[in-house]
């Protein structure tokens, strides 16, 4: 309890200004390039930031971590000029600045590399790197024209400094995600960025690409650039960061320097709880096999042992990075993607070719993006009703009594707020929207619930709630198959785990065997 009190929401904002000197900053030449001082930001209904202070020094990697909804994105958006702080000061190299928009921040040398790469696919790599200040010359002394030679040379030089040698004439649209990211970093450098903010840069990268990115980050560091690094992967943070700031509920709850932190301390700070508490008390009394998938390919002859099996009361996690095929597997099981997957459901062969068929078999899918699970303009009631439409006795009239009764019951059971079934789902908070998606499938009493990244992008409170809902569903005899790219989450809440890479299952582990996050990471990496 004593330790918890130490980390629980203790506002440390007041210490903000002191960190640079207070923690014994002996390294000379590291000046503060960008700082936020006592920043507050309020969005409709939520205090996103409540007195946050951070300081980014040149030549240093500053990791910003926290659960979803802790305020990281809001903070970097304020530092990048996208949002304005309600209160507090942003300083660039010590001078207070008020950014009117992202252009001001860019002009001040602060560049954010977002998760979705803003490249122009039809333009060449060189043009993308130098976009906005493409070198020009005058043909015959009059006609302005692109100076192609200078364009290529300058772009190649910038990328070469990043140890990224690529044909700069290639269309940027042909690049991989990781290559686009490097082009974006090159663009930032071409604008003489002094502060580079990387928003979850490794989320979609393979291990090899991560290594290359880290090399680039090291080079930038050596040049005196201040790097702000946001990541959910704590081992990366431990490996890379010189300084770490942990946010929770819009406040700074922990600050530490290299050598002072490890993954466990960061988790404790992020969640306010110990790792063990996060683990689900699991119920080993599994029932009969519900879902058995012999093979993920199209092979007609089934291998001796099935690739995937989910039993009653079992929670099976699919661990895999973005693009590892977990989403596609779930969608194929649900009949939403071709080719249809052959499997047995309670012993009977099945291969649904549409979600309608899968639903009739007793499947429900909670898609990875909330926007794919709900019709935002429709009411809570109508969204829940979507899965019940075929249960209507008469085609010419909605069975209002049946639907209203179920909806009222589920809104109570899941504590959906506000308790107004007529409210458009789009006006609900993210956590409540997620509950409505659950309600859709609970209303239909499905037997197998497929969840694709069910806790992606929601805050810690909602995350715990989703875990509880999954647990409850399994406890009542349901079978759960879910995917997550957060290894810690997968290990914490599932009874067995399949690691996926490039569409194949590469490792399998369950609680009876050697089951831990480290092993799972090893299976996914490399």
């Amino acid at each position, binding site marked *: 309890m004593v330790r918890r009190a130490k980390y629980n929401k203790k506002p440390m904002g007041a210490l903000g200004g002191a960190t640079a000197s207070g923690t014994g900053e002996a390294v000379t030449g590291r000046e503060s390039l960008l700082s936020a001082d006592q920043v507050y930001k309020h969005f409709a*209904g939520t205090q996103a930031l409540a007195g946050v202070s951070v300081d980014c020094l040149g030549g240093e990697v500053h990791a910003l971590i926290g659960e979803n909804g802790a305020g990281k994105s809001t903070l970097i958006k304020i530092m990048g000029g996208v949002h304005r702080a309600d209160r507090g000061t942003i300083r660039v190299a010590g001078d207070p600045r008020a950014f009117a928009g992202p252009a001001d921040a860019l002009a001040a040398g602060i560049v954010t590399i977002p998760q979705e790469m803003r490249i122009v696919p039809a333009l060449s790599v060189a043009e993308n790197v130098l976009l906005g200040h493409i070198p020009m010359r005058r043909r015959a002394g009059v006609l302005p024209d692109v100076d192609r030679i200078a364009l290529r040379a300058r772009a190649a030089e910038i990328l070469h400094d990043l140890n990224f040698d690529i044909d700069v004439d290639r269309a940027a649209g042909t690049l991989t995600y990781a290559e686009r990211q490097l082009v974006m970093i090159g663009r930032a450098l071409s604008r003489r960025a002094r502060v580079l903010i990387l928003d979850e840069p490794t989320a979609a990268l393979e291990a090899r690409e991560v290594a290359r990115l880290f090399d680039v980050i090291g080079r930038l560091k050596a040049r005196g650039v201040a790097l702000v690094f946001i990541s959910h992967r704590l081992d990366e943070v431990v490996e890379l960061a010189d300084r770490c700031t942990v946010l929770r509920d819009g406040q700074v709850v922990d600050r530490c320097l290299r050598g002072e932190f490890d993954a466990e301390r960061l988790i404790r700070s992020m969640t306010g709880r110990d790792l063990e508490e996060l683990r689900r008390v699991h119920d080993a009394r599994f029932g009969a096999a519900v879902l058995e998938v012999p093979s993920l390919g199209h092979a007609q002859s089934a291998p001796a042992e099935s690739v995937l099996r989910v039993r009653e009361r079992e929670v099976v996690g699919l661990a895999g990075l973005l693009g590892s095929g977990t989403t596609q597997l779930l969608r194929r099981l649900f009949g*939403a993607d071709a080719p249809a997957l052959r499997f047995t459901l309670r012993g009977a062969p099945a291969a649904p070719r549409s979600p309608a068929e*899968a639903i009739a078999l007793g499947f429900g899918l909670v898609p990875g993006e909330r926007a794919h699970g709900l*019709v935002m*303009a429709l009411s809570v009631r*109508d969204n829940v009703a979507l*899965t019940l439409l075929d249960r209507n006795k008469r085609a010419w009239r909605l069975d209002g009594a049946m639907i209203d009764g179920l909806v009222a019951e589920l809104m109570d059971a899941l504590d959906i707020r506000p308790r107004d079934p007529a409210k458009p789902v789009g006006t609900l908070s993210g956590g409540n929207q997620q509950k409505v998606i659950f309600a859709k499938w609970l209303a239909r009493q499905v037997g197998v619930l497929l969840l694709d990244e069910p806790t992606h992008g929601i805050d810690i409170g909602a995350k715990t709630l989703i875990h509880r809902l999954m647990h409850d569903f399994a406890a009542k005899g349901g079978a759960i198959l879910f995917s997550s790219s957060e290894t810690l989450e997968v290990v914490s809440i599932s009874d067995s785990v399949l690691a996926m890479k490039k569409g194949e299952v590469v490792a399998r582990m369950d609680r009876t065997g050697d089951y831990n996050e480290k092993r799972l990471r090893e299976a996914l990496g490399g």
Partner: protein
Amino acid sequence: MSAAGTRVAGRQTGLQMLSGQIPLLALVVLIAVSALVSDRFLSLQNISNVLIQTSIMAVVVIGMTLVIIGGGFDLSVGSVVALSGCIAAYIVRDVDTTLGIVVGTLVGTAVGVVNGLIVTKLRVNPFIATLGTMVLVRGVVLLVTDGRPIYDLPAGFIAIGGGNLFGIHYLIWILAALFAVFHWILHRTPYGVRVFATGGNREAAFLSGIEVDRVTISTYVWCGTLAGIAGVLLAARLESGNPTTGEFYELTAIAAVVLGGASLYGGEGKLYKSMVGVLIMVVLGNSLNIMGVPSYWQRVAIGVVIVAAAAADRFRRRG
């Protein structure tokens, strides 16, 4: 905090409800102003005129509302009005009245099926798909009729466009019946929920087990069928099948739906509001007429109203 949140949300809903009725308020104001400016406006004769003028366009607007709520778009309705009218006129004149009405309507249904298949199976953007069928069907009309109107229709058929029951025009009865049926279909049946869901979020609807392609096709079929009915009614009203009728119907119908506040992105709208939209357009034209405003200026005025309505809608959604 949640209580406060609820209260704020409640207030927003109240405001939204008010702003959602702007088209109706605009119509009331428009009628009031017209009545003040001209005492002829509220005469029984004029009201009847306005309603009759509205009725045929309103039938097209019902179909357009369905398609737009379902996330689609149909530019071919004007051409369908002409084709259905002309085919109906031929059959009514040469074969049989009832058969003519049925076949004329089914021509519209057929075009709707084609539109729906192009949009769903060939995955062509609805705007382009129906732009194509609009031009194509107009070409077919001109081919079939050789560009000449079809006259000499039997009195029984013409009566549909001119007769009345209990002092109220047949056309208005027909509109009222169609409105009642489609209002029920759209707002009271499981099918209606499917249409709204498909238009509002196709992926979410698909993942909820709705056969979205089937729903989309059905909206085009309804729209084509209703345009077919409108074509037959117009032929009866004009006492002829005319290959050049129905031009700009598609644009007027879309404008009426937008004026009524439906989202052009689909998934939002109310049938009665689209009716208000079409009434605004007809009443505006009518009162400008009565006031003696030249017809060229009337077009300018209607254009301004459409742009203003669309802008106001954007503003409302953002705010």
